[in-house]
């Protein structure tokens, strides 16, 4: 009997900087097999997407106008199927890092400017540690 293909893993990248958001989403899809990457330009846009779809991994920038990355991570914790998460930041402050690791259970913090391969490796590692659940509605 042929085995059914595993569901494509879903990554949501959140950054208000389009110049980072679009190439990063593009690169992750090129570097990671069997992954579908969606892009959101704000935390609010990300929350709308998360309300309708199951996401395996959220990669978010820390500093964004409106709801920032740290708050978005906090909201992720309240979801029934909490996605894994990576926080991107231009300058990691120890206090923020502590809160994100201990309170928001972020999987990794990646400092900008980052190597695309390092980001893809980190994302792969976090996805491998996570069981496959749900899917994308659209």
């Amino acid at each position, binding site marked *: 009997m042929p085995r059914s293909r595993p569901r494509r893993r879903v990554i949501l990248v959140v950054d208000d900087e389009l110049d*980072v958001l679009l190439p990063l989403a593009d690169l992750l899809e090129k570097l990671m097999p069997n992954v579908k990457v969606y892009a959101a330009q704000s935390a609010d846009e990300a929350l709308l997407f998360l309300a309708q779809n199951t996401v395996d991994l959220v990669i978010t920038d820390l500093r964004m106008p409106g709801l920032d990355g740290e708050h978005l991570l906090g909201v992720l914790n309240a979801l029934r199927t909490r996605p894994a998460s990576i926080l991107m930041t*231009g*300058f990691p402050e120890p206090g923020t890092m502590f809160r994100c690791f201990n309170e928001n259970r972020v999987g990794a913090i990646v400092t*900008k*400017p980052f190597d695309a391969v390092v980001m893809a490796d980190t994302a792969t590692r976090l996805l491998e540690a996570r069981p496959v659940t749900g899917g994308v509605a659209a």
Partner: protein
Amino acid sequence: MKGPPTRARRSSAPRRDAASKERERIRQLVHDLNTPLSALALQLFLRRRSQADATPQDLRFLEILDRNVERIRTIVASLAPPTPAAEAAPPIRPRRRATSTW
């Protein structure tokens, strides 16, 4: 340390404030420079992956961009002030050897 502020302590407070503000300004600058640097580095990576049809001129252009992005990255990294945790860390002292032969 308690008690009335001495003249030395009073005069060093504004200097500490100024140094702290300067550190914060540089921290902000490093943060703001790292975002456009990320955008450039990601675009370069994308271009490098699709360079099968690149002309020698394109390759030279990419090489120049690569080299200068790396140069700016090094400068920005050297600007970064120590984090508060690093500032608070005690100075490293040479450890005494367990089996002393002194």
